[in-house]
């Protein structure tokens, strides 16, 4: 394959999934700034490996590379500090900064609780251990199938299911004290 074609195919197949890559990167790194670097590095890696991509799911393929790049980076630099490292910008995000909030549920009870719960959910999800956080983000925010997630994380589909189940329970537990008395 000649390079201009490779270049064009890459732009047509992979680049449209930059939002997904950035969203996952934000939730993995918990920092917009790190996420930008991570996505940039992962995209260039993706371009280098693009000759080896023969599938039809470019989004899952790119997310696999984003995730692998993150774990390499995480092990090298941040293993010790990660749990205490909180990015102010990420955590002080208000909803005007968070684009594409989709409100489908107009149940009045929910509307009342929404303002508070958004913030709590945001922080609760960010506080989940990585192994649960990543599958939750891929499932709930990226709407990937169990099969796609299993491929990206390289675990059996049954493990995707149990991690999602445990992740949701954990998040419920994190949110529970805050919800009391409301």
């Amino acid at each position, binding site marked *: 394959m000649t390079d201009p074609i490779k*270049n064009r*195919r890459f732009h047509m197949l992979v680049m449209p999934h930059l939002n997904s890559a*950035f969203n996952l990167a934000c*939730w993995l790194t918990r920092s917009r700034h790190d996420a930008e670097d991570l996505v*940039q590095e992962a995209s260039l890696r993706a371009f280098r490996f693009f000759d080896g991509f023969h599938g039809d799911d470019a989004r899952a393929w790119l997310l696999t590379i984003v995730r692998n790049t993150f774990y390499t980076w995480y092990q090298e630099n941040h293993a010790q500090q990660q749990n205490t490292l909180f990015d102010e910008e990420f955590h002080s995000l208000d909803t005007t900064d968070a684009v*594409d909030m*989709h409100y489908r549920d107009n149940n009045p009870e929910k509307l009342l609780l929404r303002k508070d719960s958004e913030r709590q*959910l945001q922080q609760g999800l960010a506080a989940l251990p990585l192994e649960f956080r990543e599958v939750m983000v891929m499932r709930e925010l990226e*709407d990937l199938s169990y099969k796609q997630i299993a491929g990206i994380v390289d675990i059996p589909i049954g493990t995707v299911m149990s991690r999602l189940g445990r992740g949701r329970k954990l998040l419920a537990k994190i949110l529970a004290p805050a919800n009391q008395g409301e």
Partner: protein
Amino acid sequence: MEHSEIMELLPAYVDQELGIAETLTVQSHLDSCPECRREYAEQSALSKCVRTETAYFKAPPDLAARIAAHIPDTLPQDKPRRISLPSFPASWGLSSNLSWLQVGTAMATLLVAVWSAGLYLNLPTADDRITEEAISNHVRSLQADHLTDVASTDQHTVKPWFNGKLNFAPTVIDLAPQGFVLEGGRLDYLDGHPVAALIYRRQKHPINLYIWPANGKDAGPKAESSRGYHVVHWTADEMHYWAVSDVEESELLKFSGILRLATHQ
């Protein structure tokens, strides 16, 4: 299946990732087990909260440009080779420094490029895949003489039949006055989901209408054809609709038009 096994399947049940058999098993267990019902409610409430109330971080606008700037237009090659086609007439002679070998190389490169582009254009999209799958389901439903699980021309019989079999309620409307007679309903499986299949008949032609929940935005009707069958699909009110039939495409489009009007009321 035991209670503990059902409990473990609940996340996948919430996510509609179970097969039909398991879905039905879980469903009937839920009817009799308050503990699993609580767990199911918690799982689905949490899932819904995260989906609707957490931030989706879109890439900053300049990120794509920054990445593109790092991607070389042409990767460096071991032997840089420039192939310029000769301009008439001066270089089209023996004096040309472009040998026939080089022309041959250029042609070969062009051929590979065209072929690769062809391959790329032939890659099936998600819609193509569902179209093929929907047609196969349609054909199978006719072959196996299993067109309907519930045979009724009464929408008030067909709609409740789906209760407890699917975790959504499909809209069932009889269009007999418009020439599309409702014949019944069936459970089917499409694109990895359990789906409702409604069967209509236009004169002698059966129409399978597949319905399942969508997450995306509404999408207008799109018509496709394959293997002599026509498919019209659209997304409205968070539901996917795929109609398949051997009836003429214009008839199928008319069917979708009437249905879209009727369901929007």
